[in-house]
């Protein structure tokens, strides 16, 4: 596949295309596919009784009528049986993107699947199925070539399903975060366009500052997520150029609720971690949503970095984790609100990070390099939920298994 060229400079004489969405409606059963797609996992329904792999999603097994079905990881491999280019669609979203490549793939796991198909897949070829979120935020399946092909990520359909940084302009909200130098490097390796980095309180020294300032393709801007006026000012300047917003701002202090007699740190945690996200969304979100279908460099993603303890509080950082829960809740609302603009709200969850505030904690801790890699991989995959490191994955798995048991374990300090 030919490499995607950088998008041309915006023609200011033409109306920006209003984002339209693929169909949003699904059965309740089908939301299992979407849930797996939010983590970019390929899962299909499987009968707990007879083991049949089922598709499309069902309420009962079509082999044995058991109603005990669960979403399981299955072999992603299959054979492309048939394909077509749909030139005419009754749906506006598809009409604007016609012709659409659609294929029938017989999965090694059993079912036949009508799916999106990568341009490099040949008739009769072996393919690898992926499960991704579409612009409506629903899970869809796409067949990729089994082996990596040149510029594979540039396939237009695949790009619709992901938030790939290539040629996209990125705003990193807080350049003081330790992850930022590594994040900038990883984004540029992935082909990112201009990277804007917010730098709060330029009256304070910033160790990252000079290196960022000297880096090609990076522009530092005075911005503080707790200062509405600074965000408004920056949104006024660059709001129409932000394709991906990555919120790196974070305020963290150890301790539970009773470790302090005041709410000063808690208030800072809420202001930065929760309200900061809200302010960024309020100032940058609407402009991003208007540009959700703005060609190859369309706005695609709003990214938050959260502690995995947003889903279950670890009292050692009880106050901070409360702010993370608030931030998670805000992100869930944003996700629904930004859907109509085709903007994906991505949360990257990490365990304890390797920084001054977690210094006395034992390993494993998440290194900033690893966090940067997870963020970029999440964008490349177009995930909604990204779990960085084994710690975060472990907490998430335990939360899925039994949220109450996890709460008890964390409360006992045995988590």
């Amino acid at each position, binding site marked *: 596949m030919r490499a995607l060229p950088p998008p041309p400079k915006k023609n200011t004489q033409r109306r920006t295309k209003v984002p339209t969405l693929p169909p949003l409606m*699904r059965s309740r059963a089908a939301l299992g596919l979407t849930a797996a797609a939010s983590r970019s996992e390929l899962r299909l329904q499987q009968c707990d009784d007879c083991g049949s792999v089922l598709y*499309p999603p069902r309420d009962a097994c079509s082999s044995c009528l058991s109603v005990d079905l669960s979403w399981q990881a299955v072999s992603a491999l299959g054979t492309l049986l048939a394909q077509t280019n749909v*030139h005419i669609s009754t*749906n506006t979203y598809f009409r604007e993107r016609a012709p659409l490549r*659609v294929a*029938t793939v017989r999965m090694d796991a059993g079912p036949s699947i009508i799916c999106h198909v990568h341009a490099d897949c040949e008739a009769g070829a072996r393919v690898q199925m992926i499960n991704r979120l579409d612009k409506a935020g629903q899970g869809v399946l796409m067949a990729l070539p089994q082996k990596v092909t040149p510029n594979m990520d540039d396939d237009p359909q695949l790009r619709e399903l992901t938030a790939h940084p290539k040629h996209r302009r990125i705003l990193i909200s807080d350049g003081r975060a330790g992850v930022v130098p590594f994040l900038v490097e990883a984004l540029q390796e992935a082909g990112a366009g201009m990277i804007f980095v917010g730098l709060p309180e330029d009256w304070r020294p910033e160790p990252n500052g000079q290196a960022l300032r000297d880096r090609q393709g990076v522009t530092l801007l005075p911005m503080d997520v707790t200062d509405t006026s600074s965000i408004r000012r920056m949104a006024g300047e660059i709001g129409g150029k932000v394709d991906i917003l990555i919120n790196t701002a974070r305020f963290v202090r150890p301790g539970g609720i009773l470790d302090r007699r005041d709410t000063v740190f808690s208030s800072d945690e809420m202001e930065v971690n929760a309200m900061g996200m809200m302010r960024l969304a309020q100032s940058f979100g609407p402009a991003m949503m208007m540009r959700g279908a703005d060609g190859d460099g369309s706005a695609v993603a709003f990214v938050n970095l959260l502690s995995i303890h947003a889903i279950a509080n670890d009292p050692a950082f009880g106050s901070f984790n409360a702010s993370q829960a608030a931030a998670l809740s805000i992100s869930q609302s944003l996700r629904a609100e930004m859907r109509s603009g085709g903007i994906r709200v991505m949360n990257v969850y990490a365990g304890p990070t390797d920084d001054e505030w977690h210094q006395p904690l034992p390993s494993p801790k998440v290194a900033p390099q690893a966090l940067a890699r997870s963020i970029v991989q999440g964008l490349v995959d177009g995930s909604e939920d990204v779990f960085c490191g084994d710690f975060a994955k472990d907490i998430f798995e335990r939360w899925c298994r039994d949220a109450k048991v996890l709460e008890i374990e964390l409360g006992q300090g045995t988590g």
Partner: protein
Amino acid sequence: MARRAYDGVVLTAPVTVPYQRYSNETAHWWIARALREALSLAQMKPQQLDGLSVASFSMVPDTAVGLVQHLGLSPRWLDQIVTGGASGITAFRRAARAVQAGDADVVACVAGDTNRIDSFRKMLSGFSRFAMDATYPYGAGGPNACFALLTDHYMKTYGATREDFGRLCVAQRDNALRNSDAIMKKPLTLEAYLAARMVSDPIALYDCVMPVAGAEIYLVMREDDASARGLKSARMASTIERHNAHSDDAIQMRGGWSVDMDEFYAMADCGPHDMDLVQTYDDYPVISFMQLEDLGYCDKGGAADFLRDRDLRIEGDFPHNTSGGQLSVGQAGAAGGFLGLTEAVRQVTGQAGSTQVPGAKRALVSGFGMINYDRGVCSAAGVLEALT
């Protein structure tokens, strides 16, 4: 157990309410027109009708129940048929047994749908749960993409070409030119067929049916009642229906007919080559090919060769879809599942007029319905014969 024949039961009063490309009327309106005309032929008042079988996609939010109150009917036997393209035959199978058993004296089997400017789009988005979950989100909603995939696979597997499909479409257009009610009124050449714009390759414009508004009806009653009313009628020698056959096939290359074909012809006491005409369900030519194969005209994959040597026109050696089929007459929703059957009743009763196959006494009618996900789920067939 051997099935009981449809002795003493006939199909009569076939009516096709001429189709319109778009209609602001409702399904109720179209069905009422069909009913009124058929009952008028049978010299019956609406209140005398004691059996009703309805097939429609666009009655929403009504069902057959809402319809009877809407139309002032009071049947003692009521049915709603949901098999789409197979509804003509499946409606008969139920109605005939009711009449045979005395549960109803006369069953009006009616199918009708309207077609507003955007009703096709709306119908597609809510067609089925599997479509909602697994085809519509891919831009593959509706039958075009699904049949494109089947056709692509069929062509690659059996070597059929677009010319092979084109010949069938061109022949049907020739037939349609003799049917003044057909929506398509211009001749179609093979060159024009091949040059048409792609809809979903390899499906091009003339492989697709035109969604239209319209209604079809026939009455099922006892043979002696029909003759007492002075109606010309036909008998059904055999029928089959089958749903979700061959569900393990990776992609649909055959339908339920192949499961039941032997029993079908045994009951009819004839074979595929004993037909004077054949009405296949033709919402894409590849489906007509599959029906011919699965109903014994040739081996699987052999339809292209089989048809290459035959003339499918009304006066040809293999009269097929004599009114022009859905490809040229239009597809009036569920009425598309009746079109071949009402035309066949007219044919074997000598009432087909300008599309009459001379001396037609026996017709094969086949139905195929409901692209629930990746394939048609319902199949049906019947052998219709003139009364001797």
